[in-house]
């Protein structure tokens, strides 16, 4: 049994990315869309880790970036949830169509 290589990892991250994108485009529930964004971010994280490990194994830039993204994602999730809660309070709905008032 061989250990997974760079391509395996890239495959996982690409699959994750497109799953997330699919979710983002098709779901109407804002919480689900937020979860899809988390998937997108995590696929990027996997990319960073994989390239860091296989291209520059003796450096830590990719790891740092990953940790940074996780921190940002946590903050972003907090903000997004707050927005969603407020939206629910005013619209009694967390459907994305309830937000379509800011337009031309």
């Amino acid at each position, binding site marked *: 049994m061989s250990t997974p290589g760079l391509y395996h990892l890239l495959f996982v991250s690409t699959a994750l990315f497109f799953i997330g994108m699919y979710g983002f485009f098709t779901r109407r529930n804002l919480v689900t*869309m937020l979860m899809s964004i988390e998937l997108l971010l995590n696929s990027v994280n996997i990319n960073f880790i994989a390239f860091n490990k296989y291209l520059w194994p003796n450096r830590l830039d990719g790891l740092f970036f990953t940790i940074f993204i996780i921190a940002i994602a946590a903050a972003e999730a907090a903000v997004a949830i707050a927005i969603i809660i407020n939206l629910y309070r005013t619209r009694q709905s967390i459907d994305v169509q309830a*937000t*379509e008032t800011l*337009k*031309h």
Partner: protein
Amino acid sequence: MPNTTLVLLIALLPLAAFILLGLWGKKLFSQSAGVIATVLILAATMLAWYTAYKYFFVYGNTAGIYQKIPLFSYSWLSFSPGMSIDMGIVLDPISAMMLVVVPFISLMVHVYSLAYLKGEERGAVYYAYLGLFTFAMLGLVLSANIFQLYFFWELVGVSSFLLIGFYYQKPSAVAAAKKAFIVTRFADLGFLIGILVLSSSANSFDFATIIQQLGNPQQAAAQSATAASFMGISALSWGVALVFMGGAGKSAMLPLHIWLPDAMEGPTPVSALIHAATMVVAGVFLVARLFLVFSMSPAVLQLVAYTGAGSAVFAAIIACTQTDIKRVLAYSTMSQIGFMMFALGISGKEGDAALGYTASMFHLFTHAMFKALLFLAAGSIIHFVHSNHMSNMGNLRKYMPVTHGVFLIACLAIAGIPPFAGFFSKEAILLAAFEQNKIIFYTALFTSGLTAFYMFRLYFKIFWGTTQSDYHSHGEGGAAMLLPLLLLGVASCAAGFIPFGNYVTLNGAVLPLHLHIGFSVAPVLLALAGIAVAAWLYKKANSRPAKLAAFMGSFYKWAAHKFYVDELYNYVTQKIIFNLIAKPAAWIDKNVVDGLVNFSGNSTVLASEKIKGWQSGKVQQYATYFLVGIVVLAVVFIYLRK
């Protein structure tokens, strides 16, 4: 030496009156505005007379020559070394002489207006404007720099505009104010170009430097300025001719005189101050100030002389036919300024030939006194009769004895009857003309006869004849109206006895004015004849004037219509300039310039209408745009840009 602070205060006190009354007059001083302004002007007059006295009798004269004393100079705007606009004060014979005239007339008008404008709601505004005018006029005569003079020149124009239009509810007053401003402003365009031509030749804006550089044929600057030519005329001639254009506009010389008769729409005391005694002589003053430069161009001096003489006789003829008392006086002002102007034009530089210069300044001085008197007396009459028209007046000597007396004095003075003021100055002008230019001399002689005629026509029609209506009016007006009349009456009697040639001459040295008894006979007899004819025609109501008018036929009609100059201007501006220049320009503005602006606006609106649907508010749609953008960028960077 002179005290600079005191001289500065002369001009700054009226400015203080303007600021004080202009800012807080309506709220704080609506009742006391006149008194405040009068007190300030009184102080300025005292200082001015003190300064003039000191100049003429204490420090001005060094070794028999009156010096030009620059008092101070503050470099305000500097272009290059030598070329700077300074704010300065210079005392010389003519500015000291104007220091006697301007504040005095202004003071008389201030006092007179206390009664004349009693109960006027906007009295504070009126006095504020008077203060602005007095400040500007004093600044003008004291200017040491030609650009500084230009500023004050425009300031007197503005204050004249404001005062002519003081009764702004009257459309005719508004039109007259606009006309005065536009005509003089048009002339000032020439003045400005003239200033630039002269100062670039002399490389300075300073009067003393300009005169020193350009007024002396030996100077290199003067030689190059007379050599350089444009359209066959030297730069120097262009410069002084254009400066003269400005002077002619302000002094209502032919053909820029059209604003002066209309300016009579303003309050009568204003006409006395601005349009008779002070502002309208600014043009004469300007020519006198730059006389040495003017004398470098004999052709322009000829132009000055013939313009002056032409205006004198032209205005005198029109004055004979006018029926509005103030308009007669306006044309008489124009005629008298014509006398001053041609006296400068025929004057020479050296010795006895410079008599014209002194005579012109002398006439300016005496004219200010008796013409202010005439206007203030006319104000009293209008106040009494409530009309400007001679046909509503008659037999007023029974009702207004004091006004009658001073009006008679002023008429005798302007007619040139000895021993009143006008006699001496007019004799000096005629003598100078006799020695220099016979054509102008005979024109002037004829005009002075005509002057006597039309002034006494006015006099007899107002004060003699029959009572036209029951003037159930108040009396002659209070002390505030009579005092200025009496003081100016005394001045009109006495001003002629001043030995003017001892004080105001071109080179500062004494130029005694001799009175040739033999020479004076002809003008005086002619004036007496004019008076006699006026008495014969107008002392008692009769049919002779109408017959004479019929005998003169179309000439009378032309004169009564002011020789159709206004109509000519209207034709040129409305038919030619409006149609050929203004209308095409308006078309281009409306269609081309506005079209470009409208096109850019309309196309922006149109484009935004088309694309505004893209902002749908749908988050997922935005994400799609984003994705498409990323894909395009990826394609571009990966495949197209290797």
